[in-house]
């Protein structure tokens, strides 16, 4: 019976988080005191692509078009309504394009790169960390620990720069920029997929290598703690096979905090590797966010932040729903 109440509570909590975050997301950029349309106009005038005369009128027209002339509370209500329909409006920088279109293009790249690397580094890092703490694991495996843990101390964008230098510029094994070759039009073909894969290897590797150690360190710590628990001693005294001791008793208990971290990491997938995307010129969300911050493109920034919030809230919800299945002790408390 706890299930229904628990579910309801979690889902209500999910909406509360999204609403709060969306509200902050609305007011925060407006507090910065910048006037995006005027700034855009001034930039265009400076670059000579628009006439200096009539700027004021144009600003007014555009402000009316984007609804920026109305009182704040009206803007807020409209905003909430739009959010509910997931209508993110138009980009200011790439005007006729909608934010949704921009996000859709970028999201695919980011999901492909970051979801994969996050999951891979979680699986390998966690397993590796558990084995490093396991006295019965082979020595060669445990001797890999120092280099991998050292790698974790290097920020991934720095690792990315190093890789870029070594593998793209010096050795020329992999392309150094973008998600596909210049001149290729993205399409759903096998060839394009391979091309994109080739371009993803370096950014993926730099994220993977630097986050592997992060998972491994956390897991090793947990595993060492679990190994000191009384139930491990008793399980050994029960004559349990080493493999069962490792998986059923050790890993099974030590992995619980890791799952929480994974949910949080998945939520940050879209923002987490911003710098890697920028370093490699990868056409993902990170690059888009970077450019839209530079261009003071409110709707796009808001759209991205909202996406990040939604993914975070969703992964947290998934976590809340799965963790009780993995750890029976949680069921009672909520």
């Amino acid at each position: 019976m706890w299930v229904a109440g628990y579910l309801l509570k979690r889902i209500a909590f999910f909406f509360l988080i999204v609403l709060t975050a969306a509200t902050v997301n609305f007011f925060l950029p407006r507090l910065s005191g910048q006037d995006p349309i005027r700034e855009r106009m001034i930039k265009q005038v400076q670059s000579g692509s628009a006439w200096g005369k009539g700027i004021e009128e144009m600003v007014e027209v555009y402000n009316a078009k984007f609804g920026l002339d109305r009182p704040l509370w009206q803007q807020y209500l409209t905003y909430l309504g739009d959010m509910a329909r997931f209508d993110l409006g138009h980009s200011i920088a790439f005007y006729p394009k909608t934010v949704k279109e921009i996000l859709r293009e970028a999201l695919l790249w980011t999901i492909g790169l970051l979801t994969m690397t996050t999951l891979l580094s979680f699986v390998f890092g966690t397993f590796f960390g558990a084995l490093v703490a396991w006295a019965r694991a082979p020595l060669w495996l445990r001797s890999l620990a120092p280099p991998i843990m050292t790698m974790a101390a290097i920020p991934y964008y720095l690792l990315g720069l190093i890789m870029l230098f070594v593998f793209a510029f010096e050795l020329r094994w992999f392309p150094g920029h973008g998600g596909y070759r210049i001149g290729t039009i993205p399409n759903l073909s096998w060839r394009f997929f391979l091309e994109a894969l080739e371009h993803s290897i370096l950014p993926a590797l730099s994220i993977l290598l630097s986050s592997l150690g992060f998972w491994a360190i956390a897991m090793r710590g947990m595993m060492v703690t679990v190994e000191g628990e009384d139930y491990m001693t008793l399980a050994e005294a029960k004559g349990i096979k080493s493999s069962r001791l490792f998986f059923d008793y050790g890993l099974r208990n030590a992995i619980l905090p890791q799952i929480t971290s994974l949910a949080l990491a998945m939520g940050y997938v879209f923002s987490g590797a911003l710098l890697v995307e920028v370093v490699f010129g990868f056409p993902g969300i990170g690059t888009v966010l970077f450019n839209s911050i530079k261009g003071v493109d409110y709707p796009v920034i808001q759209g991205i932040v909202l996406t990040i919030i939604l993914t975070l809230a969703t992964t947290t919800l998934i976590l809340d729903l799965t963790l009780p299945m993995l750890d029976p002790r949680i069921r009672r408390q909520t």
Partner: protein
Amino acid sequence: MTPQPRSNGEAHAQSAALQVRDLRVHYDTPSGVVQAVDSVSFSLKAGERFGLVGESGSGKTTLAMALLRMIKPPGQIESGQVWLGGQDVLALSGEEMRKLRLAGIALVAQGSMNSLNPVTRIRRQLLDGMRDHAAAGSNSTDNGTSAAKMSRREQEAYVRDLLARVGLEPQVADMYPHELSGGMKQRVCIAMAISMRPQVIIADEPTSALDVVVQMQIMETLRRVQEEVGAAVLLVGHDMGIMAQFVDRVGVMYAGKLVEVSPVREIFSRPLHPYARLLIECLPSLEVKDTLEGIPGLPPSLLERPTGCLFHPRCPHATTECETQEQMLDEVQPERWVACHRLEQIHNSPPETGDQ
């Protein structure tokens, strides 16, 4: 190593369930070698209940873990022999030893609160040990309780039977450890320990985290199931009250050595070794109202152990002989084994009460 293996109660060596000879365990620490268990010898008859008492750090738990061969580095079993039935425990391979655990020698552990895996149901924890003993080797052929060969129905019946034996409802099988009280958890641990009908059960302070009423119930349960399966019990602890009610014989450990092994009645009425005697005099009495007194001094550091008799710095009867000469455990009276130089002098001049 030692020329003459000495063991107490060795008269019926063949019927002994567990026989320990000159067992030595040490820990290699950065500050030196700690001799945690020093030439300990004793044996348990089938079905016997043997109590091992001593202060904290006297090596009781190390001894218990050594019998299971679960001493972790930097600890190491240095020498000695452990015979379980006809098997030389210390000569077994790692895999053979694993199979001997639970099937031949089972543990009821110290921290009952955390001894169960928090994330799996009791049923699974009762069965998984047996599952891993499938196709058991020579040591457990006639136990007939290999879970792997059981059908689901038989397993269910088996779990039900195990729980009933320790006085638990069958529903407990579906529960998780956090849903059980401390006493119930320890009952589950006892059910596990007897699940493969071992010859020896090591109970390492099985009641340490429980209140006195539950303690009594747990000890009663342990006694009942132990008699049912005919296992010998090695009860490790420092609760003399529980010892008096539960065990047949008591071994007193001091700084890693056994100093006296005697039947429980006699050790309480007339302890022979000065340490055992001071220990028992410490027990509060219901009749005499007096301030509680301990044994003066502290147990020695195992890094810098005294020469001769380890107890001599605190012993009221110590002489120069005690300071230089080590004394082996010896059968000074029938069934009574004591390691003391001055036994005759102390006990031939009675009611002198040992304070000179």
